């Protein structure tokens, strides 16, 4: 864990590993989380909860394990990613624990800790098994099929399950899994591999109309196919969130790959077209939009299905939290339906206030920023595209759900990454972080150094 001795002899500037700083930041994140646990207990009944040490040390142990794996298998990785993710994951655990104390059905901190542990296992397994992420490029089409398979899995009889009006779950054994969360990873890998292969055609062919370079009609194929799939997800599974997530990510990756603004415009047009068509066909799409425009109206507030009750409860919570929040354990998150899942951001806002939400958003923004830096620093197109895609899908997901909950955009159900209760999302996002860590390790690893040995031989070391 010390800086290699090569630094002293080689004139080439080298990236520091910063392992010590990472460990300190990790400890700090764990301390913040333990403090938050204590605060919940003090807020609820004036006592430090018995579970503080269990949860705190449990989380701490997990993260130390993750850190050791990282230090061993990806020593050059970005030092910020793991501590940042630990912090949001830990705060999510605390909020779920807090909501569990109110007795809201479905909130279970123990389950969430279990899934976090599994997430860390997946993180470690990915780092250990995937020595070089570029191996994924060879699996482009396999990943594409896996992704699509996962997406359609909930539609299959027997294993598919419909919960809360959306058919996005499959039951395996005693567990329910939300395959779309894993599908998004597979599809980003597929998009990256596919676009790297086809980007020249997609970028160069076409003609200029007015001031925009339009692609050839036949090159619209892939976009139309993804658009069609997104619409299918929307129509068959009533999953607005995943549909928007996948389509938006694809368009942005297409843009990154081709540097062609026209793809973004085409994407927006297709999205609007799809949204209008869906609005014509499905009441629930129109309902989301109406509710977004005027959630406070009693008509929508009292509407049983597709009304604004949940959104308003979330906004009431945020409003009651104000700037500083009520303090952990002092609010009423149980008034917000599904406060431990889709609406965890609103529940957090009630107790931690505007201040806490800003800090959380800042942490998310930093994770995304570290991911994008990794993409920029990466040395091959596939890594750049994969890093950019994974970072963007994280940012995009935060934007869609947080924007929905805070009424910036119409509400579409998605989990808040690392915070919302739910195993699938946690596992998938930990794998996502493992991929970013793997890529950042590759990107930050010093290039082979030329070692002058009496001017005779050059040995390349990697």
């Amino acid at each position, binding site marked *: 864990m010390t800086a290699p001795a090569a630094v002293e002899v080689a004139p080439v500037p080298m990236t520091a590993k910063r392992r010590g700083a990472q460990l300190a930041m990790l400890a700090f994140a764990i301390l913040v989380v333990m403090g938050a646990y204590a605060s919940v207990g003090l*807020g609820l009944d004036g006592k430090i909860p018995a579970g503080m040490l269990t949860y705190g040390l449990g989380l701490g142990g997990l993260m130390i394990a993750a850190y050791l794996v990282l230090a061993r298998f990806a020593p050059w990785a970005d030092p910020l990613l793991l501590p940042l993710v630990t912090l949001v994951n830990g705060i999510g655990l605390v909020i779920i624990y807090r909501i569990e104390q109110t007795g809201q059905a479905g909130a279970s901190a123990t389950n969430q800790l279990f899934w976090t542990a599994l997430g860390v296992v997946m993180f470690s397994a990915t780092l250990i098994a995937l020595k070089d992420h570029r191996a994924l490029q060879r699996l482009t089409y396999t990943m594409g099929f896996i992704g699509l398979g996962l997406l359609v899995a909930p539609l299959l009889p027997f294993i598919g399950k419909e919960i809360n009006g959306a058919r996005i779950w499959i039951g395996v054994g005693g567990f329910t899994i939300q395959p779309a969360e894993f599908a998004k990873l597979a599809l980003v890998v597929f998009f990256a591999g596919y676009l790297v292969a086809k980007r020249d055609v997609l970028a160069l062919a076409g003609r200029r109309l007015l001031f925009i370079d339009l692609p050839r009609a036949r090159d619209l194929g892939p976009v139309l196919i993804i658009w069609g799939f997104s619409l299918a997800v929307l129509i068959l599974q009533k999953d607005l969130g995943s549909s928007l997530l996948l389509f938006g990510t694809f368009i942005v990756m297409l843009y990154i790959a081709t540097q062609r603004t026209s793809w973004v415009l085409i994407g927006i047009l297709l999205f609007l077209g799809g949204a209008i068509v869906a609005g014509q066909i499905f009441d629930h799409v129109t309902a989301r939009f109406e509710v977004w425009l005027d959630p406070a109206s009693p008509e929508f507030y009292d509407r049983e299905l597709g009304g604004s009750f949940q959104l308003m409860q979330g*906004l009431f*919570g945020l*409003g009651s939290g104000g700037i500083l929040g009520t303090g952990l354990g002092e609010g009423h998150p149980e008034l917000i339906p599904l406060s431990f899942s889709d609406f965890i951001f609103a529940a957090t806002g009630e107790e931690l206030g505007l201040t806490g939400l800003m800090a959380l958003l800042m942490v998310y923004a930093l994770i995304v920023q570290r991911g994008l830096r990794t993409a920029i620093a990466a040395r091959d197109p596939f890594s750049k595209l994969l890093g950019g895609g994974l970072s963007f899908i994280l*940012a995009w997901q935060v934007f869609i759900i947080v924007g929905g909950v805070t009424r910036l955009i119409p509400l579409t159900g998605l989990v808040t990454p690392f915070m919302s209760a739910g195993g699938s999302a946690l596992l998938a996002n930990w794998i996502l972080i493992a991929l970013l860590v793997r890529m950042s390790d590759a990107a930050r690893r010093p290039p082979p150094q030329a070692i002058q040995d009496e001017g005779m031989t050059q040995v390349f070391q990697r």
Partner: protein
Amino acid sequence: MNGTLKRAAVACLLMFGLLMVNVTYLGAVKAEDYRGDSRNQRSFFARYSVDRGWITADDGNTTLAKTVDTGGDYRFERQYPDGKMYAHVLGFFAPESSRGVELSAGKYLDGSHPDLLVRRAIEFISNEPPKGASVDLTIVPRAQKVAYDALRASGKRGAVVAMNPKTGAVQVMVSVPTYDPNVLVEPNKAKVATAFNKMVADEQDPLLNRAVDKTYPPGSTFKVVTAAAFLEDDPSRTPETQVDAPQVLDLPQTTVGLPNYGGAACGGGQVSLRYALERSCNTPFAKFGMELGWDKMREQAAKFGAGEPLPFTLPVAKSDIGPEEELAALAQLSIGQRNNQMTPLQMLLVAAGIANGGEVMTPYLVHKIVDPDDGVMDETQPKPMSEAVSAETAAKLKDMMVSVVQAGTGTGAQIPNVSVAGKTGTAEAGDAPAPHAWFIGFAPADDPEVAICVFIEAGSAGTGATGGGTAAPLARDVMQAVLQAK
């Protein structure tokens, strides 16, 4: 690809920027709206998250309202141990409103008063529930109970209000019929609203605090005010001054005359002022009023506090002698009829002013405010309200009021070994078949410690009720209780 990646990074930055701006807008600008929205249950919870200060009497020795920690969502529950007896004084702390002392001292009770700001900040930081200050009232529980029991036992509607004439500290305030405030404090809006609406719809109007919320014609008790104006008008007049007392007074511009009560004669047409008050003859006082004129009558009433809303812990309806009309009206208002409308509290101040040598003290209910650490934050200092009459006039009036109880219409108020001063009243109440019965007075006459006003509403006391027969004995019991409690 780095160029587009950087643009994508800018797009991400923009997205997070938008989220942050929106969250700031919600948390800082819209927060107030959302917090105050009636559909937001939290404001309702917040009402019960304060360890509300207690309301006590008798220097904290008697608990009138307390707060119980239930540990639930509606954490602190309000309870009124003697709810019905104190309902009109304490009011209630309902889910959406409050009344009485609960309202007027609300900022102390819920801890939001600026003087408790530092404490509140410490509680906020140490994560303790906010605790309000306690309010100690001037009520004398023993006397309150006597008044409440006696009034309730009589089966009549009415009010008893008593105070220390030297300080203005209210010792008794009872209004009957009453209600149970405990049913209005439940943290259940719908249930409370139903209970409250039922009370509002009740013909007996139990929510009405008859001592302060409504005015009634004061009848003959007002003759004390008329006598005060008469004596003040010419300092040479004394209780022995001979006055005209015809059996029926001719009213100008009307064909009907103004008779004495029951059409009786009053002495031999010329009587002393003392005798006129003792017997409560109508004609002499009606004549005084006409001679003095509306301005002087109103001025005298105003000196006792009428004409303006009284400064008090609770809101008080405005008492007034009525507008300036023809002489016949003036004659009638001078004996407490016509448009002359007084609250029982106002008539109490008339008695108290005379008891206190002409100086009316500002009435008050709050003895002191005690912060959660038992430190006295504020103690009410007695404050003069007005100089109603000169000390000489007060002495003359007191002298005559003692005669009323000794030998006149107020004998029912006599207390053994204590000299009592008083004046009865029996007022016709509009079309009601029965009159209002009144008694105002104070005791001991030479060194008054309690002044009282008993009011019994028309239609509830039977047709034969009079101030002397119905109100005076009640006043006697209550005054005795106050004196014994000393």
